[in-house]
């Protein structure tokens, strides 16, 4: 069965457009997109900024909750 050893023909754009997944079946092709150093550095900065933003949002919700509970407790007394 010589057909089994042949490399299956890929769509010419499959490698570029599907980020390591077969363009039709959606299965991994074993290929990976490697980030350039600039892309990696930029992504890291964005991730850190996003993490701080989420942390800030959590802190805001926490602070508002605490202040509101304090106000309501004072009002109940």
């Amino acid at each position, binding site marked *: 069965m010589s057909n089994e050893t042949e*490399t299956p023909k890929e769509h010419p754009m499959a*490698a*570029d*457009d599907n*980020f390591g997944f077969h363009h039709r079946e959606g299965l991994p092709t*074993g*290929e*990976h*997109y*490697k*980030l*350039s150093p*600039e*892309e990696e550095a*930029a*992504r890291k*900065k*964005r991730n*850190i*900024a996003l993490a701080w933003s989420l942390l800030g*949002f959590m802190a*805001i*919700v926490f*602070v*508002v*909750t605490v*202040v*509101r509970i304090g*106000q309501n407790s004072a009002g109940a007394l």
Partner: protein
Amino acid sequence: MNQSTNDSVHRAEGGAVSTASPRDYFDLLKPRVMTLVVFTAFAGLIAAPVDVDPLLAFISIAALAVGAGAAGALNMAYDADIDATMKRTQKRPVPRGAVSVSDAYGMGVVASILSVLVMALAANYLAAGLLAFSIFFYAVIYTMILKRSTPQNIVIGGAAGAFPPMIGWVVATGEISLDAVILFMIIFLWTPPHSWALALYKSGDYAAAGVPMMPVAKGAKSTRLQILLYSIVMVVFAGAPVLTGLGGVVYGVTALGGGALFMLLAWRIFRSRAGEAGSAEEADLYAVRAGDKAARDLFAYSIGYLAVLFAALIAEHAFGAYIVVPGVSA
């Protein structure tokens, strides 16, 4: 691709992953506009006759700032095509290619929702509703409908920028009173002469982008007349806080002096041939051709005028500078 089959690595041409920095995303929020939004909202909050928990007040103003920024991000996403043709806006993150249109939309929508949510938690539902409406008004009514269709775009759309002091007031009081409406109206009436002064010396930019700003649609002469008329109405109306007792002597003197200079500059524009020298080619906001200096002067001054007017209110209500105007009940 041989490279990809050999080492299981490939790189999409031109890069498939963004190299945008957090700064690019921050710029989507129009930080300079945010500064004025925060300042006027703070003035509304301070001038209101109700004390608010300082922490909740701070968080509410921050939510308002983010909401205004979110509206700016949505504006930049939708206007990417015209921003790319206008020299003044070509360096914005989307036309520059730093941030994609879909990312700008995504950030705008997420920031809008979170800002309204935080406003509802920290202040009240009315303030949150007004914030949501102002974002909708700016992003949809102004940006998507009015801006490209009528020379009255900034007259009606100016309402979006007039909401911050009213929202600040509502954060404190939980209701819309006459004074809140007066603060809204001052910015609403201030917007046309401010925006048209800029449009007079950047009309080429707007014409190239197909935006029917007043000088493009009706000509420079008509625009100069309308700047003068709106300036008269705005300067007179800026005295209204004195009549209701919202503004004291400091505010009254500021409104009088500042308004007189505003009128002088508006008169200079009316008497000039501003807008007829051709548009300034430079990208710089204040770059201007010789005949258009009067327009540039009013544009620059109008920002300071509004800031000083609201600073007077802050000084009176936050720093004890309030002196009742004789004959007016505070």
